[in-house]
Protein backbone atom coordinates (compact mmCIF):
# COMPACT_ATOMS: atom_id res chain seq x y z
CA UNK A 1 0.00 0.00 0.00
CA UNK A 2 2.63 2.43 1.12
CA UNK A 3 4.63 1.27 -1.87
CA UNK A 4 2.53 3.36 -4.21
CA UNK A 5 3.73 6.57 -2.65
CA UNK A 6 3.11 9.57 -4.87
CA UNK A 7 5.93 11.93 -5.72
CA UNK A 8 3.85 15.05 -6.20
CA UNK A 9 0.96 16.79 -4.52
CA UNK A 10 0.52 17.69 -0.85
CA UNK A 11 2.53 15.45 1.51
CA UNK A 12 -0.51 14.37 3.49
CA UNK A 13 -2.15 12.80 0.42
CA UNK A 14 0.90 10.96 -0.91
CA UNK A 15 0.38 7.62 0.79
CA UNK A 16 -2.70 5.46 0.72
CA UNK A 17 -2.60 5.46 4.52
CA UNK A 18 -2.61 9.26 4.61
CA UNK A 19 -5.54 9.54 2.21
CA UNK A 20 -7.55 6.91 4.06
CA UNK A 21 -6.83 8.47 7.46
CA UNK A 22 -8.06 11.84 6.23
CA UNK A 23 -11.12 10.18 4.74
CA UNK A 24 -11.75 8.48 8.07
CA UNK A 25 -11.56 11.82 9.79
CA UNK A 26 -14.27 13.16 7.50
CA UNK A 27 -16.47 10.27 8.58
CA UNK A 28 -15.73 11.22 12.20
CA UNK A 29 -16.70 14.82 11.47
CA UNK A 30 -19.99 13.69 9.94
CA UNK A 31 -20.67 11.74 13.14
CA UNK A 32 -19.83 14.87 15.12
CA UNK A 33 -22.41 16.80 13.09
CA UNK A 34 -25.00 14.27 14.23
CA UNK A 35 -23.78 14.41 17.85
CA UNK A 36 -24.21 18.17 17.89
CA UNK A 37 -27.54 17.83 16.08
CA UNK A 38 -28.91 15.85 19.02
CA UNK A 39 -27.73 18.55 21.41
CA UNK A 40 -29.23 21.30 19.21
CA UNK A 41 -32.51 19.38 19.03
CA UNK A 42 -32.58 19.01 22.82
CA UNK A 43 -31.80 22.68 23.27
CA UNK A 44 -34.51 23.71 20.78
CA UNK A 45 -37.15 21.54 22.41
CA UNK A 46 -36.30 22.86 25.88
CA UNK A 47 -36.25 26.45 24.69
CA UNK A 48 -38.30 28.71 26.93
CA UNK A 49 -38.45 26.25 29.83
CA UNK A 50 -36.39 28.42 32.13
CA UNK A 51 -38.40 27.74 35.29
CA UNK A 52 -37.37 30.11 38.05
CA UNK A 53 -33.98 30.88 36.49
CA UNK A 54 -33.42 34.10 34.50
CA UNK A 55 -34.49 34.11 30.85
CA UNK A 56 -31.66 33.97 28.26
CA UNK A 57 -32.63 37.42 26.99
CA UNK A 58 -31.75 38.91 30.37
CA UNK A 59 -28.30 37.32 30.46
CA UNK A 60 -26.96 37.16 26.89
CA UNK A 61 -24.62 40.02 26.09
CA UNK A 62 -24.07 40.65 22.37
CA UNK A 63 -20.65 42.23 23.02
CA UNK A 64 -18.98 39.21 24.58
CA UNK A 65 -20.56 36.76 22.17
CA UNK A 66 -19.42 38.80 19.18
CA UNK A 67 -15.86 38.95 20.53
CA UNK A 68 -15.90 35.17 21.01
CA UNK A 69 -17.21 34.69 17.49
CA UNK A 70 -14.53 36.92 15.99
CA UNK A 71 -11.80 35.16 17.99
CA UNK A 72 -12.93 31.78 16.68
CA UNK A 73 -13.44 33.01 13.11
CA UNK A 74 -9.97 34.54 13.08
CA UNK A 75 -8.44 31.40 14.55
CA UNK A 76 -10.08 29.38 11.79
CA UNK A 77 -8.53 31.74 9.24
CA UNK A 78 -5.04 31.57 10.79
CA UNK A 79 -5.37 27.77 10.92
CA UNK A 80 -6.04 27.86 7.17
CA UNK A 81 -2.93 30.01 6.73
CA UNK A 82 -0.92 27.47 8.75
CA UNK A 83 -1.93 24.68 6.34
CA UNK A 84 -1.14 26.95 3.40
CA UNK A 85 2.38 27.45 4.81
CA UNK A 86 2.69 23.72 5.42
CA UNK A 87 1.93 23.03 1.76
CA UNK A 88 4.62 25.48 0.77
CA UNK A 89 7.02 23.44 2.89
CA UNK A 90 7.48 26.24 5.39
CA UNK A 91 7.65 24.62 8.83
CA UNK A 92 8.33 27.90 10.59
CA UNK A 93 5.27 29.53 9.00
CA UNK A 94 3.17 26.52 9.90
CA UNK A 95 4.26 26.67 13.54
CA UNK A 96 3.85 30.43 13.80
CA UNK A 97 0.30 30.44 12.43
CA UNK A 98 -0.60 27.41 14.51
CA UNK A 99 0.60 29.19 17.66
CA UNK A 100 -1.48 32.25 16.69
CA UNK A 101 -4.45 29.90 16.22
CA UNK A 102 -3.86 28.41 19.65
CA UNK A 103 -3.61 31.83 21.27
CA UNK A 104 -6.94 32.83 19.73
CA UNK A 105 -8.43 29.53 20.85
CA UNK A 106 -7.32 30.19 24.41
CA UNK A 107 -8.80 33.68 24.19
CA UNK A 108 -12.10 32.13 23.13
CA UNK A 109 -11.99 29.65 26.02
CA UNK A 110 -11.19 32.42 28.48
CA UNK A 111 -14.27 34.38 27.41
CA UNK A 112 -16.42 31.26 27.50
CA UNK A 113 -15.31 30.39 31.04
CA UNK A 114 -15.91 33.98 32.12
CA UNK A 115 -19.36 33.84 30.52
CA UNK A 116 -20.32 30.57 32.21
CA UNK A 117 -19.12 31.77 35.62
CA UNK A 118 -21.07 34.98 35.13
CA UNK A 119 -24.29 33.07 34.29
CA UNK A 120 -23.89 30.81 37.31
CA UNK A 121 -23.52 33.89 39.51
CA UNK A 122 -26.73 35.24 38.02
CA UNK A 123 -28.53 32.05 38.99
CA UNK A 124 -28.45 30.15 35.70
CA UNK A 125 -26.49 26.93 36.10
CA UNK A 126 -26.63 23.40 34.71
CA UNK A 127 -29.12 22.36 37.38
CA UNK A 128 -31.32 25.45 37.54
CA UNK A 129 -33.74 24.64 34.70
CA UNK A 130 -34.29 22.45 31.66
CA UNK A 131 -33.41 25.32 29.35
CA UNK A 132 -30.12 26.08 31.06
CA UNK A 133 -29.19 22.37 31.15
CA UNK A 134 -29.65 22.28 27.39
CA UNK A 135 -27.65 25.47 27.00
CA UNK A 136 -24.70 24.41 29.14
CA UNK A 137 -24.51 20.94 27.64
CA UNK A 138 -24.57 22.31 24.08
CA UNK A 139 -22.14 25.20 24.59
CA UNK A 140 -20.07 23.15 27.05
CA UNK A 141 -19.63 20.25 24.61
CA UNK A 142 -18.36 22.72 22.04
CA UNK A 143 -16.05 24.29 24.64
CA UNK A 144 -14.77 20.83 25.56
CA UNK A 145 -14.00 20.17 21.90
CA UNK A 146 -12.05 23.43 21.68
CA UNK A 147 -10.12 22.50 24.86
CA UNK A 148 -9.26 19.08 23.45
CA UNK A 149 -8.24 20.72 20.17
CA UNK A 150 -5.79 23.06 21.90
CA UNK A 151 -4.16 20.17 23.80
CA UNK A 152 -3.94 18.16 20.59
CA UNK A 153 -2.39 21.07 18.68
CA UNK A 154 0.24 21.59 21.40
CA UNK A 155 1.26 17.93 21.16
CA UNK A 156 1.48 18.18 17.37
CA UNK A 157 3.60 21.32 17.62
CA UNK A 158 6.05 19.45 19.86
CA UNK A 159 6.10 16.55 17.40
CA UNK A 160 6.74 18.71 14.36
CA UNK A 161 9.50 20.62 16.15
CA UNK A 162 11.26 17.29 16.70
CA UNK A 163 10.54 15.48 13.44
CA UNK A 164 9.95 18.15 10.82
CA UNK A 165 7.55 17.89 7.91
CA UNK A 166 6.93 14.32 6.82
CA UNK A 167 4.02 12.49 5.26
CA UNK A 168 2.87 11.62 8.77
CA UNK A 169 3.25 14.97 10.52
CA UNK A 170 1.67 16.90 7.68
CA UNK A 171 -1.26 14.49 7.62
CA UNK A 172 -1.71 15.06 11.35
CA UNK A 173 -1.66 18.83 10.93
CA UNK A 174 -4.09 18.64 8.05
CA UNK A 175 -6.48 16.63 10.20
CA UNK A 176 -6.32 19.03 13.14
CA UNK A 177 -6.99 21.89 10.72
CA UNK A 178 -10.16 20.08 9.58
CA UNK A 179 -11.12 19.64 13.23
CA UNK A 180 -10.49 23.29 14.03
CA UNK A 181 -12.48 24.61 11.05
CA UNK A 182 -15.24 22.21 11.97
CA UNK A 183 -15.43 23.65 15.51
CA UNK A 184 -15.94 27.02 13.89
CA UNK A 185 -18.82 25.60 11.82
CA UNK A 186 -20.46 24.35 15.02
CA UNK A 187 -19.85 27.68 16.73
CA UNK A 188 -21.55 29.56 13.88
CA UNK A 189 -24.69 27.54 14.59
CA UNK A 190 -24.41 28.04 18.36
CA UNK A 191 -23.92 31.77 17.79
CA UNK A 192 -26.96 31.92 15.50
CA UNK A 193 -29.37 29.43 17.04
CA UNK A 194 -28.56 29.99 20.71
CA UNK A 195 -27.33 33.54 21.17
CA UNK A 196 -28.90 35.48 18.32
CA UNK A 197 -32.27 33.72 18.41
CA UNK A 198 -32.17 33.88 22.23
CA UNK A 199 -31.89 37.64 21.89
CA UNK A 200 -34.80 38.14 19.46
CA UNK A 201 -37.42 35.78 20.85
Amino acid sequence: MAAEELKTGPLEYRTQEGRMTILGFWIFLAAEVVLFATLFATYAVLFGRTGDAPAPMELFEPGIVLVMTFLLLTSSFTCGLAIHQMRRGNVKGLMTWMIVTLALGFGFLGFEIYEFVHYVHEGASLTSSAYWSGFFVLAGTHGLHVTLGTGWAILLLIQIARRGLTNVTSRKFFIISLYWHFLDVIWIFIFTCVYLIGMVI
Partner: protein
Amino acid sequence: MAKTDKKVPMNHVIGFALSIIMTLLAAWAVIQSDLPVTWVIVFIMVLALLQAGVQLFMFMHMTEKESGGGAVPWNMMFHGFALAAILVAGSLFTMSFGFDHGDHGDHGGEHEEHMEMDDSEGDHSGH
Protein backbone atom coordinates in the same frame (compact mmCIF):
# COMPACT_ATOMS: atom_id res chain seq x y z
CA MET B 1 5.51 20.50 -2.64
CA ALA B 2 5.90 23.91 -4.21
CA LYS B 3 2.48 23.54 -5.74
CA THR B 4 1.13 26.64 -4.01
CA ASP B 5 3.65 29.41 -4.42
CA LYS B 6 1.32 32.23 -3.52
CA LYS B 7 2.33 33.90 -0.31
CA VAL B 8 -1.22 34.82 0.59
CA PRO B 9 -3.98 32.33 -0.22
CA MET B 10 -6.62 34.59 -1.70
CA ASN B 11 -9.56 32.22 -1.23
CA HIS B 12 -8.82 32.11 2.51
CA VAL B 13 -8.72 35.90 2.72
CA ILE B 14 -12.00 36.18 0.81
CA GLY B 15 -13.57 33.48 2.99
CA PHE B 16 -12.44 35.25 6.14
CA ALA B 17 -13.79 38.61 4.96
CA LEU B 18 -17.08 36.97 3.96
CA SER B 19 -17.51 35.31 7.35
CA ILE B 20 -16.77 38.55 9.22
CA ILE B 21 -19.28 40.43 7.05
CA MET B 22 -21.95 37.76 7.50
CA THR B 23 -21.44 37.68 11.27
CA LEU B 24 -21.82 41.45 11.46
CA LEU B 25 -24.92 41.32 9.23
CA ALA B 26 -26.50 38.69 11.47
CA ALA B 27 -25.70 40.69 14.60
CA TRP B 28 -27.10 43.83 12.97
CA ALA B 29 -30.33 42.02 12.03
CA VAL B 30 -30.81 40.96 15.63
CA ILE B 31 -29.72 44.08 17.48
CA GLN B 32 -30.54 46.98 15.20
CA SER B 33 -33.06 46.06 12.53
CA ASP B 34 -36.82 46.43 12.93
CA LEU B 35 -37.67 43.36 10.84
CA PRO B 36 -40.35 40.99 12.13
CA VAL B 37 -38.91 38.22 14.31
CA THR B 38 -39.70 35.45 11.82
CA TRP B 39 -37.79 37.23 9.07
CA VAL B 40 -34.85 37.92 11.35
CA ILE B 41 -34.66 34.20 12.17
CA VAL B 42 -34.90 33.15 8.53
CA PHE B 43 -32.26 35.72 7.59
CA ILE B 44 -29.73 34.72 10.26
CA MET B 45 -30.24 30.99 9.61
CA VAL B 46 -29.50 31.52 5.91
CA LEU B 47 -26.39 33.49 6.88
CA ALA B 48 -25.29 30.67 9.21
CA LEU B 49 -25.66 28.08 6.43
CA LEU B 50 -23.70 30.29 4.02
CA GLN B 51 -20.96 30.72 6.62
CA ALA B 52 -20.77 26.98 7.18
CA GLY B 53 -20.40 26.66 3.40
CA VAL B 54 -17.54 29.16 3.45
CA GLN B 55 -15.72 27.12 6.10
CA LEU B 56 -16.31 23.81 4.36
CA PHE B 57 -15.50 24.83 0.79
CA MET B 58 -12.98 27.63 1.21
CA PHE B 59 -11.11 26.53 4.35
CA MET B 60 -11.49 22.79 4.65
CA HIS B 61 -10.40 21.75 1.14
CA MET B 62 -13.55 19.67 0.94
CA THR B 63 -13.50 19.23 -2.82
CA GLU B 64 -9.78 18.75 -3.34
CA LYS B 65 -8.81 16.38 -6.18
CA GLU B 66 -5.51 15.26 -4.65
CA SER B 67 -7.29 13.72 -1.70
CA GLY B 68 -8.03 10.65 -3.82
CA GLY B 69 -11.34 10.45 -2.03
CA GLY B 70 -13.14 12.23 -4.83
CA ALA B 71 -16.55 13.33 -3.64
CA VAL B 72 -16.43 11.38 -0.38
CA PRO B 73 -15.86 14.24 2.13
CA TRP B 74 -18.68 16.11 0.45
CA ASN B 75 -20.84 13.03 0.69
CA MET B 76 -20.10 12.56 4.39
CA MET B 77 -20.86 16.15 5.28
CA PHE B 78 -24.01 16.21 3.16
CA HIS B 79 -25.41 13.17 4.96
CA GLY B 80 -24.28 14.49 8.33
CA PHE B 81 -26.11 17.76 7.76
CA ALA B 82 -29.18 16.01 6.31
CA LEU B 83 -29.41 13.90 9.47
CA ALA B 84 -28.89 17.02 11.59
CA ALA B 85 -31.75 18.79 9.83
CA ILE B 86 -34.07 15.79 10.25
CA LEU B 87 -33.15 15.45 13.94
CA VAL B 88 -33.66 19.09 14.80
CA ALA B 89 -36.75 19.69 12.67
CA GLY B 90 -38.26 16.34 13.69
CA SER B 91 -37.70 16.98 17.39
CA LEU B 92 -39.23 20.42 17.14
CA PHE B 93 -42.15 19.08 15.11
CA THR B 94 -42.98 16.27 17.52
CA MET B 95 -42.15 18.01 20.79
CA SER B 96 -42.80 21.72 20.42
CA PHE B 97 -45.24 22.61 17.65
CA GLY B 98 -48.78 22.95 18.80
CA PHE B 99 -47.65 23.52 22.36
CA ASP B 100 -46.63 26.67 24.03
CA HIS B 101 -44.18 26.50 26.87
CA GLY B 102 -44.54 29.75 28.73
CA ASP B 103 -44.75 32.84 26.57
CA HIS B 104 -42.40 31.74 23.78
CA GLY B 105 -43.14 30.50 20.28
CA ASP B 106 -46.06 31.56 18.15
CA HIS B 107 -47.64 28.19 17.38
CA GLY B 108 -49.40 27.73 20.65
CA GLY B 109 -52.51 25.57 20.59
CA GLU B 110 -55.25 27.43 22.40
CA HIS B 111 -55.99 24.73 24.91
CA GLU B 112 -52.40 24.13 25.90
CA GLU B 113 -51.65 27.79 25.97
CA HIS B 114 -54.44 28.34 28.41
CA MET B 115 -53.18 25.56 30.69
CA GLU B 116 -49.64 26.90 30.59
CA MET B 117 -50.71 30.44 31.20
CA ASP B 118 -52.25 29.55 34.52
CA ASP B 119 -49.13 28.20 36.11
CA SER B 120 -46.60 30.26 34.23
CA GLU B 121 -48.19 33.48 35.40
CA GLY B 122 -47.31 32.59 38.95
CA ASP B 123 -43.70 31.92 37.90
CA HIS B 124 -43.35 35.19 36.09
CA SER B 125 -44.55 37.38 38.86
CA GLY B 126 -42.16 35.44 41.07
CA HIS B 127 -39.08 37.19 39.69
